[in-house]
């Protein structure tokens, strides 16, 4: 078996995500090399699995083939699993955007492909007691009495463990946001929409837009 094919299939079967930011080589192969992609799909098919990508087309992952399982039971099981992760993830997104946004600006949550530094997050939090209190209350922070630097580092480590961030530069402690965070946000938006918590569509714009630009 081709080594690339083997690496990609193994990664996907191990439940890992192949995103354009943290794993650009394999992502490009899946996107552009039709032959390899077909082979991967065939290989997954024999195991009752299917290759899919998220709405923003930044990440590939593997799901059950609909014909091989009881969809509703499986979805229910997965929903319960994801349900536990929503609040920690939202807490993480909220605290990071609070740290990096001035009070007069609208908050925008992180997105795949962006980079953040631990030092910048610390600088954005350390002079605001309300932000520090929010940070301390987060589920991922177990040691509530530790200094703010440790708390922020713990936060980043947990996000890295969840596959939402990858360490890009050890010296400057710069992290890259992965496509898995995009997937997580899409899931949470699906839940918010179905719980009728408002729409995400801005007013139509005539100039908009053939380009699939990411910002």
């Amino acid at each position: 078996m081709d080594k690339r094919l083997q690496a990609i299939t193994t990664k996907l079967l191990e439940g890992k995500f192949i995103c354009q930011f943290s794993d650009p080589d394999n992502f490009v192969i899946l996107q552009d090399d039709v032959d390899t992609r077909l082979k991967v799909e065939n290989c997954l098919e024999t195991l009752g699995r299917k290759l899919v990508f998220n709405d923003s087309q930044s990440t590939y992952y593997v799901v059950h083939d609909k014909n091989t399982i009881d969809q509703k039971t499986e979805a229910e099981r997965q929903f319960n699993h994801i349900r536990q992760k929503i609040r920690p993830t939202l807490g993480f997104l909220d605290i990071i955007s609070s740290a990096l946004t001035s009070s007069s600006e609208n908050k925008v949550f992180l997105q795949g492909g962006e980079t953040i530094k631990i030092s910048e997050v610390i600088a954005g939090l350390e002079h605001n007691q309300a932000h520090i209190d929010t940070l301390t209350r987060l589920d991922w922070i177990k040691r509530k009495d530790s200094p703010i630097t440790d708390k922020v580092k713990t936060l980043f480590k947990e996000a890295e463990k969840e596959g939402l961030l990858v360490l890009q530069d050890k010296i400057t402690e710069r992290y890259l946001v992965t496509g898995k965070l995009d997937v997580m946000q899409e899931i949470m938006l699906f839940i918010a929409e179905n719980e009728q918590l408002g729409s995400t569509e801005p007013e139509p714009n005539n100039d908009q837009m053939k380009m699939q630009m990411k910002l």
Partner: protein
Amino acid sequence: MSIDNTIEATKFIEAIYKHRHLLSKCYGEKAGSFFPEEEEERLQTLKSMGVIRPVDKHMYRLSKETRQLLDKGLNRIHLRDLSVDIGAQVEALTLSMFEYQEAVATKDKERMVQEEDELKSICFEIADFVADKAKNIYEQAKIALGNIEYGQQRFKKIQLLLNKLDQLMAAREKLELFFDNEVFIDYPFLDTLKVRFFLDMTEYLDSARNLRQEIRSALHLRKKRELRTSQLQRLDALLKNDPSALLDNARQKAHSMPFFLVAPSIYVSTNVDINSYDDELLEQYRQTIHALALQKPESKSKYIRESSGQVDYASFQKEREVKQVRLMFNSLLRNIITSKSQMSAIEFYNSFPQSENVRTAYWLHYCHRQPQIMKNAPSKARLLRQFTVRIKFESHSDYSGNRVVKDVLFDASKRLA
């Protein structure tokens, strides 16, 4: 505003004007500029006014407020320049064109040539000016759009660049209106000039137009992200108020979203199905493992003392064995170094008078491990460099890669020769 305030404001502005060179140097270097000691007094004055702040010894940078004020002012000037300059240049073009028409009417050839040159030069100047502005905006916008660092400030900048591009487009319209004049058809020279002028500008204006669309798309997506964020914040608030919320509506529709069917992980260790009884595959698997074992054999050596029956191996006996093995090993090294020859650990063991207190297996384990320990100890590594150590293995397991030590050869003959 009171008179006192007016006087103070005047003094303040005068002081800033007086030290404008220092300020522009600070503006140029965001992280802080270095100044010679003789400037210190002037810098202290500016510091007391809150215009600059120190970052290190003899290093100053602009205060946040001053930088913001200057940024605002500079951007306004930039925009104003664009429309004023285009206006001025169009006026110059109009004037020059009238003069050209007059020259044509009076059939004054010398003047005609002069006016033609003048018209050409103005057109080139306008095209250069527009190209410069378009290029400048294009570069800045590309940097801002391509910047992947999370931050809000760049969107303010992008919005500002969009305003500049709008000004550029307005300038283009103004020029088009001007060149729409019938006079350009009546005079062949002017018609040719018009065509050349637009050819020169098209490249820049096209890129500027595309960029404008790109920026508008970016801002639209930004708006979309803000709305998504606020929606997620509402979900967060819902879960904060009711942490056990069942989210039933979403739960019922979960099966329609691919992610909720995400497959559990399978850890892949081999692609060979051992239970397949496919001899060819199993042989290939065996050979692969064998090759891997040869490539990187298991080198862990662990000595386990055998049990002495119901009572554990007496501690004093163990201590005596350890003491003895150290003595033997030191003696072995001394012998090799002094005789500058090679020696086998087993031969030495057999010839050593009190070797019966040490078990052969333990001696071999010690001779095998000790050089490795010495290698990592700075004080002993030097001694180890005096000879080479070669391990002879008795057997080699193909599957696990484990090896049994048969003998250890110490050789000082080559090193000291």
